[in-house]
């Protein structure tokens, strides 16, 4: 097989994997949008906050160290211990649940029944607040994230040699896939199956869908709106944590992590704001689409290089695709079609 074709396949596979990472972020959006009709602009920042919290706890950082030092003139920075990743993960989940509760208690509880645009504005405010809060709590240095579960099961880095060897034996050409991407894919698959099962087959899931559909009716069958909203924000927080771990392990825990939320937007337009499987398929299409487009037309590898846009198409391809979708299929591929009887 030609080196050219193997390279194309490699680009395709890498597109799939980065699509999975987009989908992970998009998932968080879908969860909250489905259950409360809120488009949560803060989802990306939540991923950043979750990742920073995890690293901070793991490294024994003192929360608000700068603030404490500035006020009391002390020099505390670290508790001087290292906590295992598994335990830190549990604590971080706790923090995200606390955050969900606080968001519900102090922001959205007071905005019940407001226009969607007002709720959206509130999430923008929340995004900026959380960003500053995260910096204040854990400082703004770029941190590396190493995540190991008991039994030396660390998030792997670098090239997968098994696939490379297999490809080399078959075609005489190497095949590069990042181990971390494979792990992220597996984690995403498990997460999606769990989320779909949760919303379709458990009583809390059914209550969640009920709240998403009609508040009054949900109240009349005995569902507490507050409880469901805290539950949904907790779930979104958990998804943000998973996304934060994967992206953080890939490119370091830093501010730019919160910008991946922007890449989730076209994913949502493609997959539909209300569909969990849609977020995944949308993510894969965007991931593969932008990589293949870059390969074919960005650097002119297809059709004898007739079209060569000179690269950097990855920056805009997803948004153009989303625009096309908005024109022809506004509810996305899997979104609920709006049925209205007149």
């Amino acid at each position, binding site marked *: 097989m030609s080196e050219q074709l193997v390279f194309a396949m490699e680009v395709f596979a890498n597109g799939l994997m980065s699509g999975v990472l987009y989908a992970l972020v998009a998932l968080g959006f879908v969860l909250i949008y489905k259950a409360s009709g809120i488009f949560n602009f803060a989802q990306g920042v939540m991923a950043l906050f979750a990742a920073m919290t995890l690293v901070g706890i793991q490294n024994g950082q003192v929360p608000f160290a700068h603030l404490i030092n500035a006020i009391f003139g002390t020099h505390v920075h670290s508790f001087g211990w290292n906590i295992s990743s598994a335990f830190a993960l549990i604590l971080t989940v706790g923090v995200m649940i606390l955050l969900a509760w606080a968001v519900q208690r102090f922001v959205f509880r007071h905005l019940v029944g407001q226009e969607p645009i007002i709720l959206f504005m509130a999430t923008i405010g929340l995004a900026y607040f959380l960003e500053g809060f995260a910096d204040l709590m854990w400082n703004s240095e770029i941190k590396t994230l190493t995540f190991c579960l008991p039994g030396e099961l660390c998030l792997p880095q670098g090239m997968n040699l098994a696939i490379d060897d297999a490809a080399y034996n078959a075609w005489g050409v190497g095949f590069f896939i990042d181990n971390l991407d494979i792990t992220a894919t597996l984690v995403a698959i498990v997460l999606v199956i769990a989320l779909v099962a949760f919303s379709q087959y458990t*009583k*809390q899931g*059914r209550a969640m*869908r009920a709240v998403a559909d009609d508040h009054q009716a949900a*109240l009349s069958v005995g569902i507490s709106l507050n409880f469901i909203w805290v539950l949904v924000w907790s779930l979104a927080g958990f998804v943000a944590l998973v996304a934060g771990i994967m992206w953080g392990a890939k490119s370091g825990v830093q501010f730019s992590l919160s910008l991946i939320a922007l890449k989730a937007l076209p994913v949502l337009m493609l997959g539909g704001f209300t569909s969990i499987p849609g977020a995944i398929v949308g993510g894969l299409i965007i991931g593969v689409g932008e990589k293949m487009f870059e390969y074919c037309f960005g650097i002119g590898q297809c059709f004898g290089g007739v079209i060569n846009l000179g690269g950097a198409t990855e920056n805009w391809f997803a948004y153009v695709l989303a625009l096309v979708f908005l024109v022809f299929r506004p509810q996305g591929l899997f979104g609920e079609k709006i*049925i*209205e009887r007149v």
Partner: protein
Amino acid sequence: MSNDSYVTDDGRTIGPTVMEMKNITLRFGGVKAITDISFDIREGEIRAIIGPNGAGKSSMLNVISGFYVPQEGEVWYKGAKRPPMKPYQVAGQGIARTFQNIALFEGMTVLDNVMTGRLRQMKANLFEQAIWKGKAEREEVENREKVERIIDFLEIQAIRKTPVGRLPYGLKKRVELARALAAEPSILLLDEPMAGMNVEEKEDMSRFILDMNDEFGTTIALIEHDMGVVMDLSDRVVVMDYGKKIGDGTPSEVRNNQDVIDAYLGVAHD
């Protein structure tokens, strides 16, 4: 408040008082929607609240179901005074309701909609549901059986898997009734169950209400402004006008009450 039971002419047993409203007054700012109203609902009866438009019937129903909290007066339920409660807590106590303007989960199927009526009866925790053995499985099977029975009863088998958003008005009303009934409520509140229906649909609905009361022994409190339907259905009737109670008794008592006749037919004020 009465603790004795009696048997009606058609052989149904009406039990003791299950809910009692004592001197309820509800205001919206300066407007009095309900003024000093008291009445009771007895176990197993069909109790109607009637009155012309704007009489405060729906407000009364909203007070019972916890959507409104009255400024004055007490609600007594099963022999105890009820503290101010959220609607979902009231539902948790076994008071189910339907809405005048239908509140269903439009995106969900009929079956799923009716199943939400049984959320309160599902006790298995998340872990038990995840492993899907023992309690969770048993519960789901049990609840499905009950729900299927109600679906049969209300003759909506054919549309079990249809998303509710696609159904016509009359069927939606019936699905909403099924969901409320699925909760096996101690009191079932119906807000204008016959509103916007043609004669045939009204007859169907009346039949369902009577059968429900007969077969499941459900206590029903309903609001209606169509006098004719109500008189045939109910055991006792409260009549409201301009937020005040102007009559309370059996249909024949109410029909001969001069205030009620005036309220419905209008009377010359001089």
